[in-house]
């Protein structure tokens, strides 16, 4: 379960300067926060606060506590201190608020109980009193440990049987004065589990026992998950059962299959992540105690992480030494979030750190719960503290600074484009490293605030006698400190040198004649110091790491250590950029360094031939360098050995093909040709076609292509590329020669392979190439076919093809409307396409074009590629023309050939199976039915829509000779009755009106009678006959009708 990874150790300088805090008495406990350092001294009854940000750490104030402080914590939110104190064998929990008003020591300090907020205070005293106030927080159980939420200032107190959560109430009375109070709002019952440390952050609660860590989250539970569980516990208060069930399930888990053959009741090494942790065996139940409990009823606890360690697991440490320490929850915000300012928003990441003597663990808790890093310490660690930039660890004799992966995790939460070809970031699983191991004497305690690390050092107290030793005069430690500091400043560690150490201790302690110093070499010098070590500004450390990496690169350009160091440096910058408090000037400097860092990582990966070489692309993109600059950076030192890394070629290829770079100068473009000639000659045709290579010397490119042609299999794309180049230099013989080498069909394949031969995208524009222009005039069929093929192979979208042809035809030879070439494209695409949405779109567009042309009749001289007949024969969407149409609009019926074609195409579409007539009705409005062409379309549409009766009337009115072919074709099946219900009466009426003179009508009537006589029985037929009919006219039909009926 433990990842054993190698730990790189670098000797960089994350620590800048060291100051000695002017404490007069030996501090017992220290803690930091709000740019202040708090040292508890005078037997735990006095707290001194020092200003961390000022040179020399001056004293801010000193105030007395009410008892002997056993532990102390500062909260950034609310700027209060909370202590566990003892007095006369009783233990108290107290919060010290507004402590900065204690600058004058003899100021009175207010004391009150939790919740006894003096609302009337201001009215009684006039102005609000700027006074320090201590809030006494009574507890039922003995407090063991406590923690404050860095985002809300809420206070979590770990007691012997439970955890109590207090929410911070803050009321601002004036600009400088606010009153704090706490509300006890939740008790977490954790039976038979006494935490040694707790942590609280953004609803996450972490607790640590000797060899166990549990992290849970308080959150709103989905109400729909609850009811089933709740039903069985009607008698138990709801908040007591939330997790009571877990014990059952956990019991089952414990006796899982893996445990069957060992029944040893020995704690095993365990790691349970997320939901899994529910089975850990530690039950947590909630009891709401606050005033607003009701609103929190839907809140519950979810398990996040559980780890348990076996006591004998760690070699080199005795069992009693093996216990966890330094539990910490660390939030991180992304740069878009307003982290921890006015209203605390949910942090993007929350990390959990805890440590054993020889190994530390850092987990990411949000999104997926995951072990991010395991830190192997070279020696036993006493305490560790995690920040966004570093993990600081103290051992007895060293301060160690390790790299962290917080920013690598946060970057991925912030930017979904990371780990794509757009952006990159070093992986968070990357091995951590020790940036520095700094020697110190007798380290005891560590705390941290911003860029300040506070270290308490003290000599080991060996015997009781020494314990009783009087406090040294205050002068002595100062001299001692000065000298020790001096040695350290010049790089000598007194502890590393026994003689020096003896000298140091003797020269100052010799004045005390009574004190005899034992001569054991392991003995540390007696004394204590409180140091503030400032970490190096990010930019400086970044610079150093970059320099450091160059040393590695010099000895081995492919060094992984170089990549590792640069990645560490990169992550440092990212961590700073994620800091919401970063000042804008500093931010812009770091952003500049960040781009530089991306460029360096790009350089590194471009040199590599390993699997990560593709990372060159995103890093270079993020660097903001132009491709020309990148090419320049990658130029080999000597021209003789032209060698380019795989990563660089990958970058170059993508940049050339992705249409997102600048146009290269002739020189650079020719260099690119050279590079590909060497590295990947097969790419040359594509490279040449890239729009950014326009300035490349065509003759030079032809030479390269010729060389490629000679050495590889024939390629249509290559031939077409050569043709395009020939066209550019005006060598028409060469052009013709290349274009004649392959059949048009094969050439289409060539274009599919390299669409840039025809069109190049520039943002939203589509730019036809010179070859496309030339084909328009010489081989428009090939151009259309190629574009159709590009569309069908998803190389261009319909809109892009439209733009392409519009661009090609915009020289104005066609008066207006849709260029013929585009219509040709649509017609060809309609033949080829199988996508329904495309087909519907094309049908609509073509119908619109046809109607437009028929209406305006101004479409002159442009012949289409496909005739109506071609389309009817080759395309299923164009139907065979109905016979009656040829009577209505006979071929070459008083309109020009072109319009005849358009009319036939339109009619054919209407006769076809696919076109939905109702969708084109709005278009029909502009088409007049005054002539037969228009009439034919209107009748056709009406008939398609089932309006046969109106079609019959229209035809009888306008073109009666077409009525019988129409009726024969259209009045069938369910429309059959229209013969006698509509057509026959109409004909009778019209014949009568024409007084029998109209022969067309008469013959139509006869034809109709034949059909009607066939379909009806004699009685029905008789009923139908008009009263005024001529008997001899109708009689033969009646007879036929009767005879047919008799036969049946």
């Amino acid at each position, binding site marked *: 379960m433990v990842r054993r990874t190698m730990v790189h150790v670098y000797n960089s300088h994350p620590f800048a300067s060291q100051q000695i805090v002017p404490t007069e008495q030996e501090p017992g406990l220290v803690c930091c926060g709000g740019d202040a350092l708090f040292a508890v001294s*005078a037997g735990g009854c006095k707290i001194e606060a020092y200003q961390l940000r000022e040179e020399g750490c001056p004293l801010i104030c000193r105030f007395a506590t009410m008892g002997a402080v056993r532990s102390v914590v500062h909260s950034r939110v609310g700027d209060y201190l909370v202590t566990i104190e003892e007095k006369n064998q009783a233990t108290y929990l107290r919060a010290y608020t507004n402590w900065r008003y204690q600058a004058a020591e003899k100021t009175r300090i207010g004391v009150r109980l939790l919740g006894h907020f003096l609302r009337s205070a201001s009215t009684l005293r006039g102005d609000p009193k700027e006074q320090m106030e201590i809030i006494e927080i009574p507890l039922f159980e003995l407090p063991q440990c406590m923690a404050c939420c860095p985002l809300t200032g809420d206070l979590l107190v770990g007691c012997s049987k439970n955890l109590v959560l207090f929410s911070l109430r803050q009321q601002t009375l004036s600009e400088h004065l606010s009153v704090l109070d706490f509300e006890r709002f939740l008790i977490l019952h954790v039976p038979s589990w006494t935490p040694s440390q707790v942590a609280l952050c953004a609803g996450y609660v972490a607790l640590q026992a000797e060899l166990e860590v549990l992290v849970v989250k308080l959150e709103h539970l989905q109400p729909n998950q609850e009811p089933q569980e709740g039903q069985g516990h009607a008698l138990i208060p709801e908040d007591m059962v939330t997790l009571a069930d877990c014990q059952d399930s956990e019991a089952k888990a414990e006796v899982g299959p893996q445990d069957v053959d060992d029944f040893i009741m020995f704690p095993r090494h365990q790691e349970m992540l997320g939901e899994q942790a529910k089975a850990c065996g530690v039950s947590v139940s909630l009891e709401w105690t606050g005033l607003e409990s009701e609103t929190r009823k839907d809140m519950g606890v979810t398990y996040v992480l559980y780890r348990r360690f076996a006591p004998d697991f760690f070699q080199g440490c005795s069992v009693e030494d093996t216990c966890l320490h330094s539990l910490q929850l660390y939030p991180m915000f992304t740069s878009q979030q307003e982290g921890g300012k006015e209203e605390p928003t949910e942090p993007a990441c929350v990390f959990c750190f805890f440590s054993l003597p020889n190994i530390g663990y850092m987990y990411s808790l949000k999104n997926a719960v995951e072990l991010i890093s395991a830190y192997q310490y070279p020696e036993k660690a006493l305490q560790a503290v995690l920040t966004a930039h570093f993990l600081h660890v103290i051992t*007895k004799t060293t301060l160690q600074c390790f790299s962290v992966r917080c920013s690598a995790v946060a970057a991925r939460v912030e930017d979904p484009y990371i780990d794509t070809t757009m952006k990159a970031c070093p992986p968070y699983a990357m091995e951590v490293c020790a940036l520095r191991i700094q020697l110190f004497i007798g380290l005891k305690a560590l705390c941290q605030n911003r860029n300040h690390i506070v270290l308490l050092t003290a000599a080991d107290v060996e015997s009781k006698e020494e314990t009783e030793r009087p406090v040294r005069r205050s002068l002595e430690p100062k001299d001692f400190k000065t000298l020790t500091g001096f040695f350290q400043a010049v790089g000598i560690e007194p502890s590393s040198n026994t003689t020096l150490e003896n000298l140091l201790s003797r020269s100052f302690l010799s004045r005390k004649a009574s004190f005899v110093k034992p001569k054991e070499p392991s003995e540390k010098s007696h004394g204590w110091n409180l140091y503030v070590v400032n970490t190096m500004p990010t930019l400086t450390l970044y610079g150093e790491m970059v320099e450091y990496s160059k040393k590695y690169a010099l000895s081995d350009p492919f060094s992984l250590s170089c990549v590792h160091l640069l990645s560490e440096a990169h992550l440092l910058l990212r961590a700073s950029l994620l800091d919401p408090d970063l000042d804008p000037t500093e931010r812009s400097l770091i952003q500049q360094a960040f781009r530089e860092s991306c460029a360096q990582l790009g350089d590194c990966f471009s040199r590599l031939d390993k699997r990560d070489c593709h990372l060159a692309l995103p890093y270079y993109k993020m660097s903001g360098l132009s491709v020309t600059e990148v090419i320049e950076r990658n130029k080999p030192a000597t021209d003789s050995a032209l060698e380019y890394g795989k990563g660089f070629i990958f970058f170059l290829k993508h940049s050339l093909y992705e249409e997102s770079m600048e146009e290269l100068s002739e020189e650079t473009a020719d260099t690119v040709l050279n590079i590909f000639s060497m590295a990947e000659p097969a790419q040359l045709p594509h490279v040449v076609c890239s729009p950014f290579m326009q300035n490349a010397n065509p003759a030079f490119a032809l030479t390269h292509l010729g060389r490629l042609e000679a050495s590889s299999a024939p390629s249509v794309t290559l031939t077409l590329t050569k043709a395009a180049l020939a066209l550019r230099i005006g060598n028409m013989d060469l052009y013709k020669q290349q274009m004649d080498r392959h059949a048009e069909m094969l050439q289409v394949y060539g274009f599919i392979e390299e669409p840039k031969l025809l069109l190049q995208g520039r943002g939203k524009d589509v730019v036809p190439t010179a070859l496309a222009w030339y084909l328009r005039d010489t081989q428009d069929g090939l151009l259309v076919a190629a574009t159709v093929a590009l569309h069908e192979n998803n190389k261009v979208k319909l809109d892009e093809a439209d733009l392409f042809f519009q661009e090609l035809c915009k020289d104005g030879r066609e008066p207006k409307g849709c260029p013929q070439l585009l219509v040709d494209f649509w017609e060809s695409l309609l033949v080829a396409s199988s996508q329904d949405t495309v087909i519907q779109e094309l049908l609509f567009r073509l119908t619109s074009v046809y109607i437009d042309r028929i209406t305006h009749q101004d479409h002159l001289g442009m012949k289409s590629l496909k005739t109506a007949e071609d389309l009817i024969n080759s395309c299923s969407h164009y139907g065979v023309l109905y016979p009656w149409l040829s009577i209505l609009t006979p071929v070459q019926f008083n309109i020009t050939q072109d319009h005849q074609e358009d009319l036939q195409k339109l009619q054919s579409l209407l006769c076809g199976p696919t076109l939905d007539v109702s969708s084109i009705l709005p278009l029909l409005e502009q088409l007049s039915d005054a002539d037969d062409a228009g009439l034919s379309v209107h009748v056709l549409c009406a008939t398609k829509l089932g309006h046969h009766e109106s079609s019959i009337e229209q035809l009888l009115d306008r073109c009666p000779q077409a009525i019988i072919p129409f009726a024969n074709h259209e009045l069938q099946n369910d429309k059959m009755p229209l013969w006698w219900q509509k057509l026959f009466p109409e004909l009778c009426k019209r014949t009568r009106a024409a007084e029998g003179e109209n022969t067309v009508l008469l013959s139509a009537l006869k034809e109709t009678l034949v059909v009607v006589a066939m379909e009806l029985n004699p009685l029905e037929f008789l009923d139908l006959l008009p009263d005024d009919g001529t008997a001899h006219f109708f009689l033969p039909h009646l007879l036929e009708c009767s005879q047919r009926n008799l036969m049946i």
Partner: protein
Amino acid sequence: MASKSSLLKVILLGDGGVGKSSLMNRYVTNKFDTHLFHTIGVEFLNKDVEVDGHMVTLQIWDTAGQERFRSLRTPFYRGSDCCLLTFSVDDSQSFLNLGNWRKEFIYYADVKEPETFPFVVLGNKLDVTERQVSTEEAQQWCQENGNYSYYETSAKDATNVASAFEEAVRRVLAMEDRAEHLIPTDTVNLHRKPRSNTTCC
């Protein structure tokens, strides 16, 4: 600095307006302000003093004497090492109330042996001309209630203030079980738990 120092909690009780805050201010800062506000709740000040060769940190607790602040002050009686019962010599009612203050203190401080607990009685405002409580009356009360020391003080004139507080210290130090109240300075354990001197891994 002396080798040992201890933190002694001394609490000032008495009716509102008898001058508890003034006594504390006079003692700690050596100042007197006639227009001091009423104390609300509880406040304290620390003062390092040497009494008979003993270095002690005196933590003087000033309380609100008015009845309406009772709930604010009583929780803080616990852990007191000495109680200064204060009245004003020009206000007989404040003197008559001493017994109630004593009772309130013993009850809330949860004093195990009230008979031996060190009380010191202060009659303040000695500077005023019209006394209502005579020295004899006060001394008699002290005698009858547990043989308490009695000091007549004036915070305004700084009369007897230091002696009264020093007497409080002496009273505490004189308690037979002195060690219980002491927290030695330089034996504070720096660690959460004692560590054996094993070498690290």
